[in-house]
């Protein structure tokens, strides 16, 4: 049992190391994207007037978010929400949505 615990601890250390090496929780993209799902649908598949994000081109998502953030692109909610996300967060969430099935 002790050996099992030691092994578990070792694995946990390795796992924590991997997490640290990646700079963040490896579910960060998933968690960030979930904060968009209320309006854009689960995993970015929207039901209505708000655009779907699943499968969108990463560069396009990043450009739009940056334009909302800078005020270049007009909108209702998005210029206000985009200002709450860092450049790294925008990059991470765009990668995640681009990888989803449209």
């Amino acid at each position, binding site marked *: 049992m002790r050996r099992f615990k030691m092994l578990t601890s070792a694995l946990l250390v390795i796992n924590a190391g991997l997490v640290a090496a990646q700079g963040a*929780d490896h579910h960060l993209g998933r968690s960030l994207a979930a904060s968009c799902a*209320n309006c854009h649908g689960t995993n970015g598949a929207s039901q209505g007037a708000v655009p779907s994000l699943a499968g969108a081109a990463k560069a396009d998502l990043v450009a739009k978010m940056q334009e909302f953030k800078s005020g270049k692109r007009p909108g*209702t909610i998005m210029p206000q929400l985009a200002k709450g996300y860092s450049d790294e967060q925008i990059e991470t969430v765009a990668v995640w949505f681009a990888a989803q099935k449209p």
Partner: protein
Amino acid sequence: MSMQRREFLKALGAAGITTSALGGCAAMRGAGHAGQVVVIGGGYGGATAAKYIAMWSGGAVAVTLVEPNAAFVSCPMSNLVLGGSKQIADVTVSYDGLTKRGIKVLRDTATAVDADKRTVRLASGQTLSYDRLILSPGIDFLYNQVPALNNDGAQARVLHAWKAGPQTVALRQQLEAMHDGGVYAISIPRAPYRCPPGPYERACQVAWYFKRAKPKSKVLILDGNEDVTSKKGLFTKAWNEEYKGIVEYRPNHVLTDVDAPTLTAKFETAGDVKADVLNVIPPHRAGAIAAQAGVITANNRWCEVDFLSFESIKVKNIYVVGDSIQIAPAMPKSGHMANQHGKVAAAAVLASLAEQPVNPTPILNNTCYSFITDRDVVHVASVHHYDRDKKTLVTVAGSGGLSPAMNPLEGEYAWAWARNIWADALT
């Protein structure tokens, strides 16, 4: 095996937990599952948490949702039922979508939590075991602060309609039965309360109905707060322009009691007000099961949580989401926020079962649409992130804001929001 299930089981493996070992492991309770999660309350917070745990674990974690109501009835959009432009069926969603996801939905009421044994007793007599418990009990009304309302007869006459459902329909019927020239009065409790802009939106919706059907009638807002608590400029403009001569706003009206037979409201410092339809939203606190579980820690009303996980600061393995929590600064008690709480809690519960660290940088946003007419809408939006020094969620500087004016485009977006968040929580 789904990708998400495989990923979650891999995470368990990395933590030295194998599913084959689970059978003999007393700590893990779901037979054949990598853990058992019980969710109490199927509103915006609980339904979302249940769905995301099932989805993100690919079904590897067994999820049971305990909810007394047969269907989900949304508080957001329900003021349109009072205005008469929508029916209660338009804001009602089945729980079947969660059942199809493999979640066990029990139509039952949780009556007791034993945090040491990690069990939940239900009104039906059944007992559920859990590895992690998520409480999303919503609110209970503090009728002791409105003593004459503390009985069924008075509560059937002076409605709150602050939990959407039969009360919403009954209040609409009272408004329909009222004579032209009558007064509808709404009493708002002191903040914090569920849905800060909700009472003001309701005043607009009732005024929208009166303007068309009963133009001699009045809407009287009796606010327990010193001023309008949300979207002040936008609502004030609506009352002075769209609903001029119909809506009257009175601040500093802290309700002390009512006289139900005469539909009279009594206040700390202001004179009595008699109405033809009296709508009282009593002060509230976290739902009763939170008190029983011992997770109410703030002012004998709300549940304090660790905002990295939404785990109770007091009782381990119990997570609290939705309107029953002690909110972070500038964080409203809203359905949208509850949905966001549910996702942070879902991720934290899965991380905890896999003995992984929680996300150290959670980010939550809020979007809230209010209908001024049947189609013109105003919004408020905000973004909240975790402040490591303050150990709470704070608004991100420079983010958030309001609509410049009411507009029909946001009326379309409001319905898109509703359809998406209902699907996000319930399918």
